[in-house]
């Protein structure tokens, strides 16, 4: 035993450090689950027990009945789904053209797009709000954007600014670039349209990149708060879960039970996606470096 330890002490100590660190990282999530199934009286107990005592699902029942979590969850799903679809569709179209088609001003246009990647979202936030507010013919507006409220308080207002991001185009272009040019030529000679060449020859070859971009876009849209909170009126029917949870917290600052229940419901989807597509999550992190 002693001999074994002398030989492996380094491994044992690093293992211990890694396990303690893992426990610390999980601790808040453990308490999140613990509180979500604990009676309110027990939550307000000092010192609070560190283990599961009498388990109750009252908080979950309450947030489904009174906070209408299903409604907000549905909003989040719709918004996230649409943002993913538009980014993948139009992002890959543009990315393919920038990587594989030749036309005038191609590289110039791309350089301008690339420069805009350095611009932080805060700078465009205020004017983008005005664009949404003054959008012609939307929400009672006339041609000049006067008279109505544009896309304020609508799905469109939440989705449009992030519907086709430069990042998506830039990210996918890198992958299209790695595919040889002559692959498409055969199809072209057979008389396939440019769209067909794109959709049935090139697109299937960048599937891993599309999945990684889906993960990226999912995380951004699912967790978005600042923008939807600006676009929506307080208590809006179209609030995503983030906005609804924050609203609930503002109204009930110490209702920890329901708070944990909502935040758990919100986190389950990313957790499941992470389990299914872990590889792509890790890849998405590393690709941010390039």
């Amino acid at each position, binding site marked *: 035993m002693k001999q074994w330890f002398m030989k492996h002490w380094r491994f044992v100590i690093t293992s211990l450090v890694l396990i303690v660190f893992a426990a610390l990282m999980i601790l808040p999530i453990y308490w999140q689950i613990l509180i979500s199934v604990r009676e309110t009286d027990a939550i307000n107990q000092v010192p609070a027990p560190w283990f599961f005592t009498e388990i109750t699902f009252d908080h979950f029942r309450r947030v489904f009945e009174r906070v209408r979590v299903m409604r907000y969850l549905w909003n989040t799903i719709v918004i996230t789904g649409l943002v993913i679809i538009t980014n993948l569709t139009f992002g890959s179209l543009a990315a393919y053209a920038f990587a594989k088609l030749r036309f005038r001003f191609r590289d110039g246009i791309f350089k301008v797009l690339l420069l805009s990647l350095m611009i932080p979202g805060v700078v465009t936030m205020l004017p983008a709000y005005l664009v949404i507010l003054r959008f012609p013919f939307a929400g009672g507006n006339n041609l000049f954007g006067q008279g109505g409220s544009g896309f304020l308080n609508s799905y469109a207002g939440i989705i449009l600014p992030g519907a086709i991001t430069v990042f998506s185009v830039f990210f996918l272009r890198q992958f299209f670039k790695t595919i040889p040019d002559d692959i498409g030529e055969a199809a072209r000679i057979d008389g396939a349209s*440019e769209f067909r060449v794109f959709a049935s020859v090139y697109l299937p070859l960048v599937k891993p990149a599309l999945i990684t971009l889906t993960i990226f876009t999912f995380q951004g849209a699912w967790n978005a708060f600042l923008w939807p909170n600006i676009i929506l009126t307080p208590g809006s029917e179209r609030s995503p879960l983030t906005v609804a949870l924050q609203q609930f917290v503002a109204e009930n600052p110490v209702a920890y039970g329901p708070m944990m229940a909502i*935040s758990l419901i919100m986190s389950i989807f990313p957790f499941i996606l992470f389990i299914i597509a872990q590889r792509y999550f890790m890849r998405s992190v590393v690709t941010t470096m390039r």
Partner: protein
Amino acid sequence: MNHQNVAKMKRPKSNKAGYIFIAPAVLFFLVFTAIPIVVAVYLSFTRYGVFDAPRWIGLRNYINIFTVDPVFLQSFRNVSVYVAIVVPSVVLISMVVAFMLNNRKDAKVFRSIYYLPALLSIIAASAVWRFMFDPTYGTLNQILRLIGMQSQNLPQWIYHPSTAMASIALMSLWMILGINIVIYSAAVRGIPKEVVEAAEIDGASSMNMFWRIIFPLLRPTTFFVMTMTIIGSFQLYDQIYALTSGGPAGSTTTPVFLIYMNAFDSFNMGYASAQSVILFIVIIVFTLLSQRLTRDDY
């Protein structure tokens, strides 16, 4: 002439299709990025409250930001408190953990566990940490009580000016460590085996190996992580809105939170635009700096 014709025959429809393919992306770029930037710069020279037309006031907003109104500069000071805590901690902890995980069979399991907090939205995480920080019922003070700290000495976390920003930093650290461990793990894997083996043959201890070999070789990654974290911290918002609303006593007011309040709470769109233009310049400086440092080093 002849040459051009050959090229045209090879790809008859390329030209037109290209424009059609990029049209939606370029249109959205123009409407939601390019035009807004021009508008933001224009508005920064005006007084504008959404309901009336913008009125040109020249450099007045910029002058006020640096002379009359101390809050904007204060918000950068607040961010620097956050940066001073988060940046060194992120670099050191992620690097050491990545180093420890290297060549372990169970590395993947640990990395997944460390990544879990990053999956939560900041709003959900803030709800969780609102409980963690609760001075009476919260887990953090429970632990401090267990260690034997007296009730009157327990910290108030997000509810006291002296600890609020540090508390926000603690929560952010919890959320971003996993991502940075993944980044460092990839970098550590990229270190040539021969370098490490040579050092082992020369009898270098783990400590020596870490400080003399791993740490210097990971410098480009460290620069990347540092500048990314700093740039992110300038844009700190969600957790501020959710946990402290910039308080107590303005101790957690960040530039973006201030811009949001000016624009959408008091409807000083012009003033808020000027602040966002300044923030933009600060962030661009850091971005260019990071590109310089990361590229030149290797």
